[in-house]
């Protein structure tokens, strides 16, 4: 059986790692989950192909910026039948290249001005003395500057006050480049400074946390694609909130998305309603609940990168403008195509609810079409009385870790590699304070970076500390991070893994989206 599964696994290996696995039959799914599960059969693995393009590692994500990504998108274009989206995207790309830097910045964000003003005024936290101790003691700094050394963004303080520091950053960077070398990072006791050039921007991150620069770099670079398009038009708050998300949400770390736990019958209804409400130029229909995914319907052959989805989460979560009505905004999904633009119809199902519908189209004149799609979707939803179930699921907390029934287990994060989805229980008492929450995520980050070390990766890592015991493992099918109380023993941790995986298998209908739909 195992060998059988392995063979199946090999056959999905597609050339560029960019296409989702081929469809599989129900019987391929193994009954008794063990740590030896192969990718695609672990609990939470999608049945009919993944929704996301999933990167195997951070390296995939950071793989040398723009030219590469362009190549890749061109490649996908060749492989899949030339879909209109691709063409549009590529046209947009060429257009943009012609227009040059300045234009590119401007054109990306025409519909954002009102919001920007609103944010500018709420930016009080920024007026901080950059020579003060408080400024220095921030845990993570991020600076963005242009290649000429001009300040563009800083997380704390004002860009103007920091211009001299940024000038030095620029000089350090170019000094080493003169020698045909590249600056990576500077390390000191208790903090580090990481440099990254992503033309036309330079990013410099300063971190006081224990996470390694291996993490910091890709994280900054993930942000980059974002910065390039959004922040230049003056929406610093998006970057601010994204940075905060990085500290608190394991999804970005794991390159995965969390689903709203929902009975599969209810989810099916929602999905099919969404599927039915289609339109010619519609590429993705996404229903979000906070920063959890309820469902996603996509055009056949089009895959959304989880990173892009995180950017959408962030976009929606960080501005209240969409609450008031239907929003229509051009968006760039940098992992899908870093130079092309989509147009998104963003609206909450109800002003007071957390449910947010994002409809992504290729046509900039599509607003009314999509608005119509939304109405049709809502009608269908009400008719099949799924709305109630959705509301109920939303009002309840995710699930407590005690449901799993493993003593001393405080928290866990489980990621199914093939579907790019993860699940995690509510934060238990010791981690509910923001500081402790971020500390826990920091611990996970540390485990993650050790397991995924570029030259010395690990299979298991068990870490016994005064405040908690941590256990992390990577198999070909999943990644699992467990946090036990200090009273947990190693024996307990070892026995907890199969037990937990079994529980997730039992609950997978509820915790994951197993059968993603296409139009």
């Amino acid at each position, binding site marked *: 059986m195992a060998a059988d599964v392995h063979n199946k696994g090999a056959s999905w290996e597609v050339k560029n790692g960019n296409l989702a696995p081929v469809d599989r039959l129900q019987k391929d799914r193994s009954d008794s989950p063990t740590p030896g599960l192969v990718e695609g059969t672990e609990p939470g693995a999608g049945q009919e192909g993944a929704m996301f393009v999933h990167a195997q590692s951070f390296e995939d994500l950071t793989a040398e910026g723009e030219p590469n990504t362009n190549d890749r998108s061109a490649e996908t274009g060749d492989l899949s039948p030339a879909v209109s989206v691709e063409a549009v995207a590529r046209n947009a790309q060429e257009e943009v290249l012609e227009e040059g830097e300045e234009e590119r910045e401007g054109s990306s964000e025409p519909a954002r001005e009102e919001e920007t003003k609103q944010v500018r005024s709420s930016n009080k936290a920024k007026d901080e003395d950059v020579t003060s101790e408080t400024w220095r003691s921030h845990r993570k700094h991020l600076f963005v500057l242009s290649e000429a050394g001009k300040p563009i963004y800083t997380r704390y303080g004002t860009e103007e006050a920091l211009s001299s520091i940024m000038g030095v950053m620029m000089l350090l960077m170019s000094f080493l480049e003169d020698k045909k070398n590249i600056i990576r990072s*500077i*390390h000191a006791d208790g903090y580090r400074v990481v440099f990254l050039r992503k033309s036309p921007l330079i990013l410099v991150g300063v971190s006081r946390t224990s996470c390694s620069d291996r993490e910091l770099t890709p994280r900054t670079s993930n942000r980059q694609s974002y910065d390039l398009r959004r922040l230049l038009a003056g929406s610093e708050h998006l970057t601010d909130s994204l940075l905060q998300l990085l500290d608190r949400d394991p999804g970005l770390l794991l390159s995965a998305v969390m689903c709203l736990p929902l009975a599969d019958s209810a989810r099916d209804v929602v999905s099919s309603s969404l599927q039915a409400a289609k339109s010619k130029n519609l590429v993705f229909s996404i229903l979000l609940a906070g920063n959890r995914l309820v469902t996603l319907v996509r055009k056949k052959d089009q895959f959304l990168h989880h990173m892009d989805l995180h950017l959408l989460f962030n976009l929606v979560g960080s501005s209240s403008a969409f609450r008031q009505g239907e929003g229509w905004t051009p968006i760039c999904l940098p992992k899908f195509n870093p130079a092309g633009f989509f147009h998104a119809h963003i609206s909450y199902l109800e002003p007071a609810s957390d449910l947010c519908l994002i409809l992504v189209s290729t046509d900039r004149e599509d607003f009314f079409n999509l608005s119509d799609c939304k109405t049709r979707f809502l009608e269908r939803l009400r008719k099949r009385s799924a709305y109630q179930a959705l509301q109920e699921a939303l009002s309840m907390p995710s699930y407590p870790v005690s449901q799993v029934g493993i003593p001393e287990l405080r928290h866990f994060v489980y990621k199914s590699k093939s579907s790019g989805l993860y699940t995690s229980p509510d934060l238990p008492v010791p981690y509910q304070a923001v500081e402790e929450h971020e500390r826990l995520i920091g611990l996970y980050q540390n485990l993650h970076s050790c397991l995924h070390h570029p030259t*010395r*990766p690990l299979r298991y890592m068990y870490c016994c*500390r005064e405040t908690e015991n941590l256990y992390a493992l990577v198999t070909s099918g999943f990644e699992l991070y467990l946090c036990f109380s200090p009273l947990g023993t190693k024996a307990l941790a070892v026995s907890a893994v199969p037990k937990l995986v079994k529980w997730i298998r039992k609950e997978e209908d509820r915790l994951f989206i197993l059968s993603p739909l296409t139009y």
Partner: protein
Amino acid sequence: MLMIRPRMASGTQEKQYTPSLLSFFIYNPKFGPREGEEEKKILFYHPIEIEKNEKIRNVGLCEAIVQFTRTFCPTKPAKSLHTQKNRQVFHEPEENYWMVMVVRNPMVEKPNKDGKPPTVEYQEDEIIDSVYGSVLKQCYSMYKLFNGTFSRAFDAGGVELLIQKLEKFFYRYLQTLHLQSCDLLDVFGGIAFFPLDKMTYLKIQSFVNRVEESLSLVKYTAFLYNDQLIWSGLEQEDMRILFKYLTTSLFPRHTEPELAGRDSPLRPELTGNLLHYGRFLTGPANLKDPDAKFRFPRIFVNTEDSYEELHLIVYKAMSAAVCFMVNAAVDLSREFCEQLDSLVGPQLTLLASDICEQYNINRRISGPEKEPQFKFIYFNHMNLAEKSTIHMRKTTSVSLTSVHPDLMKILGDINCDFARVDEDEEIIVKAMTDYWVVGKKSDQRELYVILNQKNANLIEVNEEVKRLCATQFNNIFFLD
């Protein structure tokens, strides 16, 4: 001097280069604060052939980085700089004196077809900062042991004297650095202690006391057996670097004559003395030689407070070696050396054979040595005690380890984790090669174990380590 050691991988044409020393320099920004005077800052620069402006630029970069990091934390400036091609490690041992070591990242050279130059791939994650930071600190300690502090030299003879001293010392010392074989042991820089029963230990203690009593000039004494320390009167920090010097430089230089036969021309000094095996490792090679010079190397200890300059006399009989340290103000004469030789020689010969006997008995009791399933490194920060079964031997040229370098690096990673958090911790990992690596930190002690049990699970590994602690460290407490 580039220490490139190409290693041909079997079957392919790829060339692997180990990390090597690119440059090493010492500067003081206060010596040339004005523009146009930058060269005066530079006190030492290796390699010497580098063009002046290039030196100035490289020193300038280090200054800039240190200054830059002060904006984020004024009291903790940069320790290292990572670039694609190399690592730079910074150390400020004395105020305003900066030492910088630039190490090239290991790289793989892949030949290209059509006569194109080969592509070079740098392996940026291979070098562990703490290892090379420690090597740099060791460079300073070694310099200080033989030359005293930078500022003393500057006070005594100005920049000229300091530059002269630095050049004289580092020119030779840098050639003895073997960066490719540096690992966790360099981070610890510990001292290996010789395990001994109480009786023999007391015998040694009384021997040391007797000698110090009769030779009142002797200020400090240290006793070693088999390159392991038994007794030392020096401060720990001083002993640490002296131990390093003895075991990696002085002793290995003298093992060859000992291994040579009795009639070999390599050991002429023994011909005249049949009463005992004692001889000087520093100072006169042969006391009977009428032209013998009674000059001993000078060392500096307690540089923080009393700042003492001492003669270092190392005397050895069989496997036992004793260091006698005498105030440098006293001139050591032929009479003193003869007195020392006749007093210490016979006693030490006897003592050495006693220790040897005892050692053999102990080894027989602990049973025949079979290849264990594990290898370990132990280090205690309190007394600098260190023990490794991973390293087969450590000589001037290479330290041979019996495990894969990647595993050593995992040990280094775990050590960095421990250093970050100031609390007791235990980390158990399983590498992709299926080796288990366990790191334990309890109070001031650190223990690292590598287990080669591919099919063991976490619980079995834990049991195995417990057993190891019980047999090897039965009276040392480790947190469970």
